[in-house]
């Protein structure tokens, strides 16, 4: 384990130096207590205290619009597959979003591999950032064990008051430390302070849903025919906000866009949503998830059940974005709490040390 520290007065310099030879993106404050990952050139642009950004950093790994191929049909079906990428450093990725990127990595590395994703991923350096306290009441990171770092970064920053303590996780991370020349070796006191902070966090981050973590898959195994899905279906507007902002939703559509010459053009993919009525429709007109209740259930099962069976991992990162953005006030914490209660698995002491 390698730790260094950065004095806060040097933070601005750090970001400026990074931005000299690479694009740096970090959370920047928007209107209405909202934040977004945007390019920055100085530390002063970066939000100090921010709730999860409107869109998760998945937008850099799997852009909303991405060209898969260019084509020219002037002389038959001629296409050239392409990948679009940008070298960049992502600064300020919270532990929930680090987990989200890890989920996407699993999905797109699974055979048949998605080389567009994998190429892009290899060009991005990730600098994580610890949450010392809850962002807001929507988060459920403790429930899914994402309130502390579980890897997935090159460097990881933790705020210790007058300085940051930084965990160096990879060679790429170490090269940044060497190149920027602003860091000092962490001393015994710094490491103690980090330990104390993590200890304090164990008290701050309490289980947001009263259930034993290991029982979550069991709850979903039994809840398929629950009436709670009907309740959600009655509220849901099928707008797809929840899937757009989810760090682990990756469904997409593939679309052709001819240029005005009607010969050349591109084939691209764009985010799609299982919440739209036409998502599971086939050519004959049958729709396999016609009801909103079934589509909401599908969304929850793609977070709490199916990936557990396939990847041995929950795909809910606890970021709270789906609840924060829902116009119909469908709340993930409330939904899971209700499902847990229905299965008689409520445990008020769960997750409390």
């Amino acid at each position, binding site marked *: 384990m390698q730790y260094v520290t950065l004095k806060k007065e040097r933070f601005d310099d750090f970001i400026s130096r990074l931005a000299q030879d690479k694009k740096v993106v970090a959370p920047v404050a928007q209107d209405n207590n909202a934040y977004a990952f945007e390019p920055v050139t100085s530390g002063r642009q970066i939000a100090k205290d921010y709730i999860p950004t409107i869109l998760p950093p998945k937008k850099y790994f799997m852009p909303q619009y991405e060209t898969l191929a260019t084509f020219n049909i002037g002389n038959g*079906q001629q296409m050239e597959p392409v990948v679009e990428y940008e070298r960049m450093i992502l600064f300020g990725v919270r532990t929930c979003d680090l987990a989200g990127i890890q989920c996407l990595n699993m999905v797109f590395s699974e055979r048949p591999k998605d080389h567009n994703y994998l190429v892009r991923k290899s060009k991005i350096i990730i600098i994580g950032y610890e949450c010392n306290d809850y962002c807001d009441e929507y988060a459920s990171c403790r429930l899914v064990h994402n309130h502390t770092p579980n890897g997935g970064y090159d460097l990881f920053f933790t705020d210790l008051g007058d300085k940051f303590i930084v965990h160096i996780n990879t060679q790429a991370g170490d090269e940044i430390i060497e190149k920027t020349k602003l860091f000092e070796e962490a001393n015994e006191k710094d490491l103690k302070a980090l330990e104390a902070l993590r200890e304090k966090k164990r008290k701050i981050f309490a289980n947001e849903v009263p259930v034993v973590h290991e029982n979550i898959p069991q709850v979903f195994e039994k809840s398929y025919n629950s009436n709670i899905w009907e309740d959600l279906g009655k509220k849901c507007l099928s707008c797809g906000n929840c899937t757009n902002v989810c760090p682990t939703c990756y469904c997409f559509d593939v679309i052709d866009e001819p240029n005005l010459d009607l010969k050349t053009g591109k084939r691209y993919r764009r985010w799609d949503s299982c919440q739209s009525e036409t*998502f599971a429709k086939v*050519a004959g*007109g049958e729709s396999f998830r016609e009801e909103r209740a079934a589509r909401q259930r599908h969304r929850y099962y793609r977070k709490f059940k199916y990936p557990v069976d396939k990847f041995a991992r929950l795909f809910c990162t606890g970021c709270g974005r789906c609840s924060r953005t829902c116009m119909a006030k469908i709340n993930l914490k409330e939904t899971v709490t209700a499902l847990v209660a229905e299965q008689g698995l409520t445990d008020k002491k769960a997750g409390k040390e």
Partner: protein
Amino acid sequence: MTLKRVILKDSEYEIKRARILRTKQMTETEKYFEIQLPGGESLDHEPGQFVEVSLLGIGEAPISISSSPTKRGSFELVVRDVGKFTGQGGRLTGALHKLEAGDEVGIRGPFGKGFPVRILEGNDLLFVAAGLGVVPLRSLINYVIDNRRDFGKVTILLGCRTPQNMLFADEVNEWNKRLDVNLNCTVDKADPEWKGNVGLITSLIPGVTLEPERTFGVVVGPPIMYKFVIKELLKKQIPERQILLSLERHMKCGLGKCGHCQINDVYCCQDGPVFSYDKTKNFPEAV
């Protein structure tokens, strides 16, 4: 520090430029295509698999392979003009219907898990196809006929709306003439010349004599049909794992990623489209 775009050599989205060798308008809404890959390369598919067919600038859609892998050098598809048939959508299939011999289409695949031919060997086969179901099922029927000695008793039950809608009528006629194939057809609506049965496909099943332990029921048809046919096959005591279904979903990417074809936790494009009933009965979203 800008967005770079480079050629991706190992992209799963790369298409092969395939040439149409022959077409035939089979019905008002169904058209047949014989297609050859560049240099006569083999498609190397299993019966029951599908390909993604592209017309650049218009789009791409999953289409069942209708020919048996025993037919070499080219493969066959049957495409329904969706816009004409349902009155909505179907831009790609409409454009495909305008193509003739000599034109090019883009091909990706084959994709998915087809019929488990090795497991079927030595067993009796009961094929049940309704509507367009005969198109993918034909890849297996012709495979079985070309390797006839390796299989037991073969029974084919076909159903379609009217005698005019019958696909591959000449070939069905050939199957019917064979002494090693039992064939029975039914139509929803007959015309004066029709000598076969009238009624739903399910009405043909009770009349079939079979040995359930050594029979595989292979079912392909419109989504609505499955639960009724499965019920009849179960009544015949065919074991659940010996009932094979090919399920229709929108297999957009074919790579188990885009999510459109997902049935509970399986991707129809990678884990299917062929499933045995003992599996699908545990997927509430399957049939």
